[in-house]
């Protein structure tokens, strides 16, 4: 068992028994390997379900939106930044939360693991220090975790939570010398034809299931623009123009808010790297406003406020 798991269970039990929280939100091991799922625990007797390992790739912030009562929640770096964003956007109050901080060393890219052992079927994947063990019916292989990190985790600069009430362990060392926007820069160098071809190819497999939107903690509107029919903002078919419109508009709704948690890519059934849209916005938010989402709760996000020195060279 991961050392964090025992600690999370212990904290959750204490919080629920003392009625400090009404519900505790964490992860439990999924029924399929590498697919840990969110779980909401209300009874101290059920804390044994809670689990932590390198496959907790969904964002728990989705379960906070406008929830009432006192809530305990586990949060690593990116999830904690989404909690800050939720607080800033008035979706939850800080006083309602007891945040159990996770010093995170990244989430494994489950698709990469599947490719590595293909075509054998994976039954279980377990953390073992800096490595993880992949087990199947008649095989057992050990891989280094750093070789299989999700691309957002490998360039992560905020592994430790920015907001917490209690940590499950000492903070981990933050990654230095990472170049989070190297891929965006390589696209920026292309001419418009190449860019269009790149993004058209990128989303060509999209089946418009909206899993990326559903997994995104920023997408909490009661009615999403894609579901609205009066007026209908975007075509609902898988016509390439409709699909492109959906993707760039969905991304734009995350401008200055995205923490690059990677939940969208993780849940995509066809493996689209839609973070290429949001990463461009993250890069620009940082370049134009010195802003990374979810680091500060006392400051309004850049797209929410006017400042006389906002860049406006593009306006004539």
């Amino acid at each position, binding site marked *: 068992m991961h050392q964090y798991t025992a600690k999370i269970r212990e904290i959750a039990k204490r919080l629920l028994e003392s009625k400090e929280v009404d519900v505790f939100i964490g992860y439990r091991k999924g029924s399929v390997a590498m697919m840990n799922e969110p779980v909401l625990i209300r009874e101290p007797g059920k804390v044994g379900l809670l689990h932590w390992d390198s496959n907790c790739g969904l964002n728990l912030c989705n379960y906070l939106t406008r929830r009432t009562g006192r809530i305990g929640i586990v949060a690593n770096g990116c999830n904690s930044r989404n909690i800050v964003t939720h607080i800033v956007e008035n979706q939850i109050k800080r006083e309602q939360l007891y945040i159990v901080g996770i010093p995170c060393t990244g989430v494994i890219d489950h698709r990469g693991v599947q490719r590595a052992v293909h075509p054998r079927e994976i039954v279980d994947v377990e953390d073992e220090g800096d490595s993880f063990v992949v087990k199947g019916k008649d095989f057992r292989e050990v891989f280094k975790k750093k070789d299989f990190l999700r691309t957002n985790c490998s360039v992560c600069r905020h592994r430790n939570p920015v907001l917490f009430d209690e940590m499950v362990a000492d903070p981990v060392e933050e990654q230095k010398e990472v170049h989070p926007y190297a891929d965006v820069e390589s696209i920026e160098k292309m001419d418009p034809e190449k860019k269009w071809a790149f993004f058209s190819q990128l989303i060509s497999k999209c089946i418009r299931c909206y899993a990326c939107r559903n997994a995104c903690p920023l997408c909490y509107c009661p009615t999403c623009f894609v579901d609205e029919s009066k007026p209908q903002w975007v075509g609902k078919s898988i016509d390439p123009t*409709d699909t492109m419109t959906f993707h760039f508009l969905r991304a734009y709704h995350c401008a200055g808010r995205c923490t690059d948690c990677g939940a969208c890519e993780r849940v995509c059934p066809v493996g689209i790297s839609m973070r290429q849209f949001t990463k461009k916005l993250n890069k620009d938010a940082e370049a134009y406003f010195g802003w990374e989402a979810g680091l500060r709760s006392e400051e309004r996000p850049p797209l929410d406020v006017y400042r006389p020195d906002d860049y406006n060279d593009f306006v004539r």
Partner: protein
Amino acid sequence: MLKGLVEHIGLEPGRLQFSWISSAESTKYIEVAQSVARNVEALGPATRLVKRRAEVG
């Protein structure tokens, strides 16, 4: 940031332009409208993010 994103995905620079023109600035309005038209004519007909008919199949 919207302009940055739309041009990042491949819309030709020049097709999307922003300006702030007061109702009292008729000369500026004419200048901007003419220059937008010139830019767009130079780029030719739009093909990106334009849906003529559904291409589903």
